[in-house]
């Protein structure tokens, strides 16, 4: 990978022949990583890394995001990016609902309970993702493409996710409904109607000239949906981000001598076993690593993709990035997922918490877009 960085860097100003060679190295680096994981850990894990790379390639290559489109809707009443998100979710749900109905325990949806902490967590996450302009997947993609704000936020996202998981059971005890899911044909029909209703509302509120989805985003939505279904079929669970980050934080804490015996979450059998196991056998860790590396490969591939100078931000912006990173991680654990695990995967596999997450995170985003300039992360307007 480091070789690819050098190659990509050299490629930005290289002759066509040299650029072709460096791009060949980029492809080889990706294939070699997948093959190495498949040989060392097993074919399923290699395939999951490949899916993660695919997510990263699509998200960065076609500039498909979550935080940015929400910001565009809030500030400019431009719904095109959110419409593309809704399209991707609808496409996944059309496949996921029948699969979940017939696959028994082999495949699980992103089902989680609605509760006070869940709703509050989603609100805070929505605000935080607008402050650093990076959601769960966005922070990984941006870090991989060299965005220094996301690069700094990422380790604190992992620490926050670990801490949020540590106390998750206490927060859930404040009050939560049983897990509520839409299932079967009627559940799918209701999900599609709700997605269409949200799309209709967005189109109603849209500014003139913004009521269309660019072809780039339609293609990205189709590819993301295919990859998300692939994640479901290969891993038996939907695409997620936050669990893996929390696991990285937990592993780091244990390596530094922390005692996790006081946490109901990290002492639960499944989580304790994953703390002992390799990251290369953890589903969300593999796709997260793939997303970072996929975004990196795209940046190396693009002519001049890594030659952008780093922004000069005030000290308070960097301090805000650290705090926001922690909040992103902590709040997304309380919310049972981020824009990927709760919004994208929750809704597309029938969990009602995904809809509550959407509403609360969007409300939080309205606050977040106003906090961002105040915290020095962009020029005041």
């Amino acid at each position, binding site marked *: *990978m*480091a070789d690819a*960085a050098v190659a990509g860097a050299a490629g930005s100003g290289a002759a066509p022949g040299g650029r072709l060679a460096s791009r060949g190295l980029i492809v080889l680096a990706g294939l070699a990583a997948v093959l190495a994981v*498949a*040989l060392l*850990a*097993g*074919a*399923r894990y290699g*395939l999951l890394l490949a899916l993660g790379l695919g997510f990263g390639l699509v998200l960065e290559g076609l500039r498909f995001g979550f935080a940015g489109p929400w910001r565009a809707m809030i500030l400019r009443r431009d719904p095109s990016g959110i419409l593309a998100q809704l399209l991707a979710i609808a496409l996944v749900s059309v496949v996921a609902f029948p699969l979940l109905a017939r696959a028994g*325990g*082999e*495949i*699980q949806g*992103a*089902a*989680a*309970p609605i509760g006070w902490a869940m709703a509050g967590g989603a609100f805070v996450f929505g605000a935080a993702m607008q402050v650093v302009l990076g959601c769960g997947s966005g922070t990984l993609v941006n870090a991989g493409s*060299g965005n*220094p704000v996301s*690069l700094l936020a990422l*380790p604190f996202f992992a620490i926050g996710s670990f801490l949020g998981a540590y106390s*998750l059971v206490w927060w859930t005890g404040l009050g939560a409904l049983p897990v509520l899911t839409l299932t079967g044909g009627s559940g799918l029909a209701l999900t599609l109607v709700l997605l269409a209703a949200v799309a209709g509302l967005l189109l109603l509120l849209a500014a003139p000239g913004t009521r269309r989805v660019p072809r780039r985003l339609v293609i990205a939505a189709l590819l993301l949906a295919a990859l998300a279904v692939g994640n479901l*079929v*290969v*891993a*038996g*669970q*939907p695409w*997620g*981000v936050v*669990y*893996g980050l929390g*696991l*990285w934080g937990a*592993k780091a804490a244990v*390596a530094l001598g922390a005692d996790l015996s006081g946490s*109901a*979450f990290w002492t639960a059998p*499944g*989580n304790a076993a994953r703390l002992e196991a*390799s*990251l*290369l*056998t*953890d*589903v969300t860790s593999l796709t997260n690593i793939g997303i*970072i590396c996929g975004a*990196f490969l795209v940046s190396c591939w693009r002519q001049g*993709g*890594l*030659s*952008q*100078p*780093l922004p000069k931000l005030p000290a308070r912006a960097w301090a805000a990035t650290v705090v926001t990173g922690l909040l992103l991680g902590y709040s997304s654990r309380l919310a*049972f*997922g981020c824009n990927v*695990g*709760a919004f994208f995967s929750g809704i597309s596999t029938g969990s009602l*918490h995904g809809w509550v997450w959407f509403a609360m995170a969007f409300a939080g985003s309205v606050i977040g877009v106003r906090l961002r300039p105040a915290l020095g992360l962009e020029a005041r307007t």
Partner: protein
Amino acid sequence: MTRRVTAAIAILMVGLLIALDHAGTDLNPYKAPPLLALGSGTAASGGFCGALPE
């Protein structure tokens, strides 16, 4: 300074994470689950952000 530096740091961080983790864990491809969960006959057991501890 350009993104070349920060992107390289991101990849080095990922590499370091995998290397440090690999030093303390064992991998055995012969104990890996089937390629696809669908049709495997085994229950899904991966960690997910929506799951509460049992």
